[in-house]
């Protein structure tokens, strides 16, 4: 590459730009800054001389035609190939000028578009819920429609296999909350109140939430990824053309499996978290397990336990339907799976927490 591709001769109002060597996109920037420094508007006649040029690429040709138009410069060139490249650049520029009328969007437009898109997503989610409901009615109409095999398969895949992790997580949560409380309670000599605290917090809130979080992260995301992949490989289209309604084959079995199993998982979580509490109470508050259980029976009424279990099906419906909806939203590219899986987990966790808050308000007002 030539070090100094531009040689200028100035004569009053005239300037001649003599290029030499290879003119490619590698030295385009250099030439641009050199020419910019010349302040070409001060000259009347500008001549671009390409006699000594050995090669001209299209990027540089576009730049030269720019100069030609902007400053009414004349290009001196005899090489046929270069002239051809220049004409090519000129012709395409004409087309570009017509087609590119892209205005930059301002903040309002961006916010407006995003809001409208969020609104459309909400509407399409409502449509999805509606179809789930209709399919469910259709499901109930005929016993033959209920696909026991798929439901059992999903129960195994998304709940039974999650037993271990749910049990371990809730055991640890029980251990941790009891341990934190034990220290504070001991200072006031209120050792026995650990039972009240654990009973209410675990049964009502912690066990259902922890279970829902684990299942949303584990099974909800799996739903999105599975169904998304099936959409990309056109398996869902294939099902439709064969007359297998994806709502009956894919959507409802998953929702039903989770709705059945989440209360069971919450029950396991209740037991494991209590076990953690009992162990901590025994070790650091010297409260024997039998005393713990006796006190639990006395002070924590059974309604707290039921309140926790009742949340299960609602959480399950939210997690499963958001996971599946996101899976069905996957477009024909692989990036879309990652995007929708992330969205599915975030949205279902958010929905679970909102739902939990609504339950709190409702139960408080009902005096439960």
């Amino acid at each position, binding site marked *: 590459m030539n070090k100094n591709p531009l040689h200028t001769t100035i004569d009053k109002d005239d300037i001649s730009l003599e290029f030499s060597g290879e003119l490619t996109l590698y030295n385009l920037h250099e030439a641009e800054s050199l020419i910019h420094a010349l302040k070409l508007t001060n000259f009347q006649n500008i001549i671009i001389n390409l006699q000594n040029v050995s090669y001209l690429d299209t990027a540089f040709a576009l730049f030269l035609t720019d100069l030609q138009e902007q400053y009414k410069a004349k290009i001196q060139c005899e090489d046929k190939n270069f002239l051809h490249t220049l004409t090519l650049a000129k012709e395409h520029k004409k087309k570009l000028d017509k087609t590119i009328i892209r205005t930059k969007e301002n903040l309002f437009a961006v916010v407006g578009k995003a809001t409208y898109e969020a609104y459309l997503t909400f509407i399409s989610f409502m449509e999805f819920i509606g179809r789930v409901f209709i399919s469910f009615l259709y499901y109930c109409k005929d016993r033959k429609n209920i696909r026991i095999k798929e439901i059992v398969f999903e129960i195994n895949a998304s709940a039974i296999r999650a037993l271990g992790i749910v049990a371990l997580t809730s055991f640890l949560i029980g251990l941790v909350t009891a341990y934190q409380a034990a220290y504070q309670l001991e200072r006031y000599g209120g050792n026995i109140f650990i039972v009240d605290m654990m009973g209410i917090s675990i049964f009502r809130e912690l066990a259902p939430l922890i279970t829902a979080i684990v299942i949303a992260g584990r099974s909800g995301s799996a739903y999105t990824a599975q169904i998304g992949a099936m959409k990309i490989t056109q*398996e869902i*289209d*294939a*099902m439709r*053309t*064969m007359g297998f309604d994806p709502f009956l084959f894919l959507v409802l079995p998953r929702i039903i499996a989770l709705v059945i199993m989440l209360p069971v998982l919450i029950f396991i979580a209740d037991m494991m978290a209590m076990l953690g509490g009992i162990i901590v109470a025994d070790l650091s508050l010297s409260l024997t397990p039998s005393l713990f259980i006796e006190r639990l029976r006395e002070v924590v009424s059974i309604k707290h336990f039921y309140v926790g279990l009742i949340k299960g099906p609602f959480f399950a419906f939210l997690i499963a339907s958001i996971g599946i909806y996101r899976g069905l939203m996957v477009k024909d590219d692989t990036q879309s799976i990652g995007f929708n899986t992330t969205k599915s987990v975030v949205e279902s966790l958010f929905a679970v927490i909102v739902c939990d808050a609504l339950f709190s308000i409702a139960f408080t007002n009902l005096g439960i």
Partner: protein
Amino acid sequence: MELIRVKNLKTVFGDKVVHNGLNLHVNEGEIYGLLGPSGCGKTTLLREMVMLQEFQAGSIEILGKKIEQISESDAQELRRKWGVLFQFGALFSSLTLAQNIALPLKEYATLSDTIIEEIVAFKLDLVGLKPSDAFLYPSQISGGMRKKAGIARALAMDPKLLFLDEPTSGLDPISAREFDNLILQLRSMLGVTMVVVTHDIHSIYNTLDRMAIIDNKKIAYEGSLEEVTSVKSDFIQTFFRDER
């Protein structure tokens, strides 16, 4: 007899008009091609015919049923009378080839397992797959085999109509010609009517009886291969120039 009749079809995506006033008909027993430049809406038209996509105006009549105002039970009945081969086979990835083919048989008919096995083996043989392939999963076989298996599944219910979306795309030239022969064989053996979306000039010459060329939202040409080059259309002139 006309199996498919499309009248004044109009399709719009957002503010982009894909088809406007499109008309065509497919006769019984023919291999009918849908041709046209990329993005002209061939696959869209195919998807509309198999009720995967809605259209905005006009009508599509398949096997005597107008699909724009079809009841759910009629639609279910139609779906059992056609088979669809998707571009990449779209086999159910969680099932083996045999289970893929057996699925519609199990769902729609009450058959014993031995008969189902027999039918599956027959369909596999029909498309040129070995009986031992039956136990492989779709991820374990080549693209060409996947398409063959896709056809075998589409043929499971002995359909009257077969829709093929770019059956030879992504295949090497030898497999592609083999596939052309398979299409012709299936037609002569089973008398099935086929609608094929294709770009493959060899397939067009080897297999098609009639075709529709979609260009500029309408049918630029409908008819046999012999007269196509006489039509004044940029796409047709460029596409068929080399082969004349």
